[in-house]
């Protein structure tokens, strides 16, 4: 599929998805939503893609939902079902990023708001430029949280801080985001992509199945009790223990050399 609103690049096992609607602050319209869903499917199917970077073109990461086309729809006779829109757009994107059993890193180059903030939260790791800033945005237009911001944000930064971000709609700058634990690291703007790709390339050499199983375990950890989590760990270890990478890891440890993981 030829993408209209994203750039899709693959090198050294790293897929970089760049949101590319610079004149609209990389906001999501129906085309960007469809492109994103398709790109995530493509990454999922591609066994050589072993790490993913999501970033944005220009000054912004992603401003969330593009409100322009929405306003036109409000005024149309058939109106808008917000629930139906979410179920086929952000709900799909967020669920796919969380279910993707490969490391996904957000390289947050600028503003991330609303669904854009949700997308960064769904990624496994967040690297930010000093120019990055974060806003919940929903209250600002009298909406409720979506794109899993109600689920992921309290888990990342705590209920008190998430509530403050949601109720006040205040802009959070990069140093504050770092202090909150909303992002893992902050870099000078020119260092963001090189540093993110350095990490992504490293993760693309790691035992991908182990990373996938770790993500599966962490995802489930939010909804199960200790006994279930322990049983789940036993299952996942049963799977990991039978991968070729595990044998290679143990052999390399015994041979006192660096392991060569194939992601299998």
């Amino acid at each position, binding site marked *: 599929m030829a993408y209209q609103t994203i750039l899709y690049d693959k090198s050294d096992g790293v897929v970089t998805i760049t949101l590319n609607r610079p004149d609209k602050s990389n906001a999501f319209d129906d085309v960007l939503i469809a492109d994103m869903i398709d790109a995530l499917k493509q990454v999922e199917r591609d066994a050589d893609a072993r790490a993913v970077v999501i970033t944005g073109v220009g000054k912004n990461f992603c401003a969330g939902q593009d409100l322009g086309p929405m306003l036109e729809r409000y005024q149309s006779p058939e109106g808008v079902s917000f629930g139906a829109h979410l179920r086929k757009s952000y709900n799909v994107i967020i669920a796919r990023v969380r279910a993707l059993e490969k490391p996904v890193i957000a390289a947050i180059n600028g503003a991330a708001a609303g669904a854009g903030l949700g997308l960064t939260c769904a990624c496994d790791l967040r690297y930010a430029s000093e120019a990055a800033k974060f806003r919940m945005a929903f209250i600002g237009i009298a909406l409720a949280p979506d794109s899993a911001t109600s689920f992921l944000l309290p888990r990342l930064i705590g209920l008190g801080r998430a509530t403050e971000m949601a109720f006040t709609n205040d802009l959070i700058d990069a140093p504050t985001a770092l202090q909150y634990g909303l992002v893992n690291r902050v870099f000078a703007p020119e260092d963001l992509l090189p540093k993110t790709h350095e990490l992504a390339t490293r993760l693309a050499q790691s035992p991908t199945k182990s990373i996938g199983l770790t993500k599966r375990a962490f995802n489930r950890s939010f909804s199960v009790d200790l006994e279930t989590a322990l049983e789940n760990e036993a299952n*996942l270890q049963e799977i990991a223990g039978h991968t070729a990478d595990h044998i290679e890891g143990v052999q390399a440890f015994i041979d006192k050399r660096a392991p060569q993981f194939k992601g299998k």
Partner: protein
Amino acid sequence: MALENIVVSTDGAVGLIQLNRPKVLNALSGALMIELGDAVEAMDKDASIRCIVIHGSERAFSAGADIDQMKTATPVSMIENNWINRNFDRLRHVTKPIIAAVSGYCLGGGCELAMSCDIILASETAQFGQPEISIGIIPGAGGTQRLPRAIGKSRAMELVLTGKFIGAREAEARGLVSRVAPVELYLEEAKTLAREIASKPPVAVRFAKEAINKVYELPLTEGLDYESRLFHVLFSTEDQKEGMAAFVEKRKPEWKGK
């Protein structure tokens, strides 16, 4: 005759049947159903087999009955052929436990097939549904009868009337499946469970299955009486004597199946 639609194998005392029409997501054709019916009946007669596992692929247990085979059918032709229910009935009369190991799509006739088994064990990717309504019919191999018994009337109505699917976790929460395992492990878990059942005294296993299946047929007092009869009869078996002797002597019992 060479099997074209299923693969049959054994793993110790466990009989394995894999639905094998990958190109059509294991759609249940007349030919497949006949092979399946033959296979389960043969395993039921084979004294070396004590538990049966039916499975498909990771992608699909079975996406349903073969629509292509039915699209031009008439009521009379459906009655005369009756390839669906005739072979589902053969499954119902098997006395040994049958486990359905389900991954991916388990829809329509596929869901009815899984529900005809004694235990459903699912992978995390399993999806269950009765989408017949969307093609102008209703479930025809037990879906309207077994699904409400498994998950309750209201949710069963919703699924059958809309054709919507439910995932493995919901199926587990509602009691349609006994357990959910990661997709990489579900088949092995089903085999492990089958081996465990196969290691139990076979006559007692058959009676236990029969008694539990009577739950859906009998009022409680008759069911309790039925259970008592089977319970009492088991005291005539050598395995009962062996089992209780081994328990008292603190050793492992050796079952004879008698």
